[in-house]
């Protein structure tokens, strides 16, 4: 990764939809170069995801549920859990539990349905939950960008 990559990263960090042309003009390179660099960062996994931030509250979602799950077949459970409606992230973890599942929910009824769907996944043995109010923009304001900025600053030293 070089300085150009980092400049591209910085440009799209808070505006994932910034046209490649704008970035190119800013850096004095061709839009094609920006595109190639961007695509290769996506391919290598440096760029995980470019996403719009949505006010999920306006779509009726106001709850964020995190399920901490113990299961007897992690790989199989991951496959099943990824298909459960409202689940937005399934992560394997090392520690007290095996899986961390993040889901959005609209109301208590919604949440209880979701919980019983997760309970009914055959490999799930036990689950515990953490519930929180969903912040206005997700993932936008929940993601801390200082991490990236810090990395950028370091690269300029």
């Amino acid at each position, binding site marked *: 990764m070089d300085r150009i990559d980092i400049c591209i990263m910085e440009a799209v960090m808070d505006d994932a939809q910034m046209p490649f042309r704008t970035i190119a003009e800013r850096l004095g390179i061709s839009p094609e170069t920006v595109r190639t660099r961007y695509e290769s960062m996506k391919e290598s996994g440096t760029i995980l995801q470019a996403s719009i931030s949505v006010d999920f509250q306006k779509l009726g979602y106001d709850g964020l549920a995190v399920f901490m799950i113990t299961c007897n077949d992690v790989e199989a459970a991951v496959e099943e859990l990824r298909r459960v409606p409202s689940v937005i992230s399934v992560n394997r973890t090392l520690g*007290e539990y095996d899986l961390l599942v993040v889901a959005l929910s609209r109301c208590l009824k919604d949440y209880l349905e979701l919980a019983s769907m997760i309970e009914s996944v055959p490999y799930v043995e036990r689950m515990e939950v953490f519930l929180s109010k969903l912040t206005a923009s997700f993932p936008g304001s929940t993601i801390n960008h200082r991490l990236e900025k810090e990395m950028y600053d370091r690269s300029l030293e």
Partner: protein
Amino acid sequence: MKKNNGPGPPRIDEIDATILRMLLVDARTSLKDIAESCGVSSNAIHKRIKKLRSECIIIGSVTLFNPRYLGGSFTTSMELLTDYKQKTNVRETLQKHPRVIMCYEGVGRCDIFAIISVGTMEEMESMRKDIRNLPGVKKLVMSVRVDDFKFSYENLDLKNVEARING
């Protein structure tokens, strides 16, 4: 059922839902691709997106990078038990920490749930110590995440809001 211009959340139909889903999955999806999936013109999609923005349903966009390439190599979830009176203080302090990716205050298994990204085991250890010593923190449990931290929105129901809200 409420009418389009009535109070309450704006109505999201099938096309809006498809637009939102495709842009959540990849914010750089072209108008043409969205238009093809919806079976309408690119111009119509453009108008819809403008409307979704003016209604503040789409608030902005972010690119998430892999912490592994950004000086972080472990992503760890962190559960905190705190004095209830100090819960918000602790969350606010945590949120300012440069290694904290996301941080929520709530109820259930823990009082605060956070995701952090650290570069080395030493850094993790010193961070654990710092956070453990914050006033009001009673217990701290960490679990290292194996998978990359990202979201998938394929299974999320984005339309039919009013029907759900009104029963």
